[in-house]
């Protein structure tokens, strides 16, 4: 705990003297994880992860396949609950409130922490209904006009509205991969979350669609706390302000993105970034 706080302080200093003084670091902490462990049956997937995630910034999790970065991401909105045999230990707090508290309503939690998945997964419904689904189940719209407004503004925020405005009633599955993924982002935004989790959102997309999504992430950061898991170190470097490196179920190093990429403290991080592991 103390060590970690020290490290955060240290990275703050290094950034203050470096080139990126404005962002991320003066921001308040939104999510705090302490000693988070996950077991799938007998197998331990995470060994005590502790990390602080700042408000309205992009934090990226990098690391080789199977390192636990997606598992940890899925702990944050309790998606691991849906996997049979998964057990989560430790604490994760959102604004100081324990999200694993038995009295907490997981449905409400997931409305506050939205998620975008690796493979675009629009529902087999129309584009409009895809976006309207979340607001509908949470009762966010009083009238049809309210709903129209939510749908349009969500699609606008996801940068998709101009492309689909004439075919809102066509199936969402008919869009291209990149458009589907932006539809999924719009769907997540429509519920009005505070945090958006993205699990390798571009891994199924081509470079052009990827660039559009990355630009979008950069815009969304002004209003949302974003956590993104990515395979691509370049992507982490491009979109995130903070980066955490996971390896074999451990959080090896975490800090300001610039530092992690130019001046990693840990040898393993260095090896990974140089392409020697993973």
């Amino acid at each position, binding site marked *: 705990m103390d060590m970690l706080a020290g490290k955060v302080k240290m990275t703050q200093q290094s950034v203050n003297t470096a080139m990126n003084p404005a962002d991320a670091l003066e921001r308040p902490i939104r999510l705090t994880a302490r000693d988070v462990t996950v077991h799938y049956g007998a197998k331990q997937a995470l060994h005590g992860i502790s990390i602080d995630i700042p408000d309205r910034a992009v934090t990226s999790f990098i690391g080789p396949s199977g390192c636990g970065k997606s598992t940890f991401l899925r702990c944050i*909105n309790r*998606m691991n609950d*849906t996997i*049979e045999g998964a057990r989560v230990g430790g604490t994760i707090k959102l604004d100081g409130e324990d999200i694993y508290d038995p009295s907490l309503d997981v*449905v*409400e*939690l*997931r*409305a506050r922490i*939205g*998620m*975008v*998945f*690796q*493979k675009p*997964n*629009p*529902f*087999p*419904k129309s584009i409009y209904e895809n976006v309207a*689904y*979340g607001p509908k*189940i*949470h009762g966010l719209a009083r009238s049809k006009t309210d709903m129209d407004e939510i749908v349009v503004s969500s699609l606008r925020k996801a940068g998709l509205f101009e492309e689909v405005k004439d075919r809102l009633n066509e199936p969402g*599955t008919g869009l291209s991969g990149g458009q589907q993924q932006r539809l*999924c982002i719009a*769907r*997540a935004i429509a*519920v009005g979350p505070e945090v958006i989790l993205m699990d390798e959102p571009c891994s199924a997309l081509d470079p052009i669609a990827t660039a559009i999504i990355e630009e979008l992430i950069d815009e969304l950061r002004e209003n949302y706390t974003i956590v993104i898991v990515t395979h691509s170190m370049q992507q982490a470097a491009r979109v995130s302000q903070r980066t955490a490196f996971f390896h074999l179920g451990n959080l090896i190093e975490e800090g300001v993105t610039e530092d992690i990429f130019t001046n990693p403290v840990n040898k393993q991080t260095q090896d990974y970034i140089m392409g020697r592991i993973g």
Partner: protein
Amino acid sequence: MNSLVIAGLLLVLLGLAYQSGWSRSRGLSTANGVKVHSRPQYHGSYVAIWTLVPALIIIALWAWLGDGITHNFIVSQIPVETVQSLDQVGLNATIARIRSLATGYGVAGEILPYEQTAGDALRSFQFITFLIVVVAAAVAGIVALLYARGRITARLRARNAVERVINIALLACSAVAILTTVGIVASLVSEAYKFFTFIHPLDFFFGTVWNPSFSSTGGAAHGQYGLLPLLVGTLMITLIAMLVAVPVGLMAAIYLSQYAHHSFRAVAKPIIEILAGIPTIVFGFFALVTVGPFLRDFGSLVGLDIKATSALTAGIVMGIMIIPFVSSLSDDILNQVPRTLRDGAYGLGATKSETIRNVLLPAALPGIVGAFLLAVSRAVGETMIVVLAAGNSPVLRGNPFEPVATITVSIVNQLTGDSDFAGPQSLVAFALGLTLFVITLCLNVFALYIVRRFREQYE
């Protein structure tokens, strides 16, 4: 006995041939840089096929022609004047007696001397022809074996030849299935056509009275063959069965695939599927003895006049019979919906039942509809339950509490007992069968079309 000997012979030939081809292949020289084309087991199979085919052809020829030859032999053994004095039926009876004598089982009544000698002669004839066939098959096999073995060289494409034979064998097997279907349809159509020479198709398809008279004394008094009462009965029972099976089966599938703990599922799914293994006659019995009386008593309690054997009884029991069919298919289809879709809904904060209602079921709907249509076509063709529990009353009415008759039951009624396939009384069964076939065919085609569309969406 004879067939055992032949099978043994073929097996020995097969083993010999395979071994011989295999060892020959192993002995092939590759010294001067020639690569052996096929592996030894292909050379073995190559020789084995070459050996087996001539032997099989000889045996098949005997199976095809042997009976006629034996028949002629027996006739030649009967004195000419006896043959002339007998009519066809009498001759056949005599031949059957001689055959029985030859097998040594003996016959009823007094044995005539010529019968005894003919029987003895037949026995030795059968023995000799059998020996000839076996030896001929063996010789042909061995000759072919030697020929095929001689053909083996390093560059012989034995693998390609064997693969081609396998290809042909598989094609032949699927051809059997297809040709059988074609044959059945053809016989249905031709017999139904004969029926329609007696009864006008319009009277059949749109007739409202089903009263086939069996007293075929007068040429004109064929009775009335209106399909509608049977069709209505069939559809009514099917509808009731689906009303039972669809909700129960679907809910069971949802529970099993989404809610149940996997250890419960591991026990419950096989148990539900056992229900599908119960013979339908047992369900019919259950309907007749338990469900029918229960429904009648229940009806009198609430002031409804429900007959013990009625469309309701048969429909409910048939529905129970179809439950595992519906639940098992729906369960598979629900599990085919990609996990990412469910995750997407959960990620938005949807509850379990919201996810199922709004995402899972709509996504699985085409597949589930396909499953239902397959279940319907089963219900339409179901016979035993209806024979026992529906009351067999071919009267056109819409009350499910009354007895009805279905197409299948009427087929059973028209074909059981003494029937003469020249009159419409029996031929109508083919017209009914054809109608049933067309109904289930349309349902199946439609169901497969829907299921395929569903698959395309997610694969």
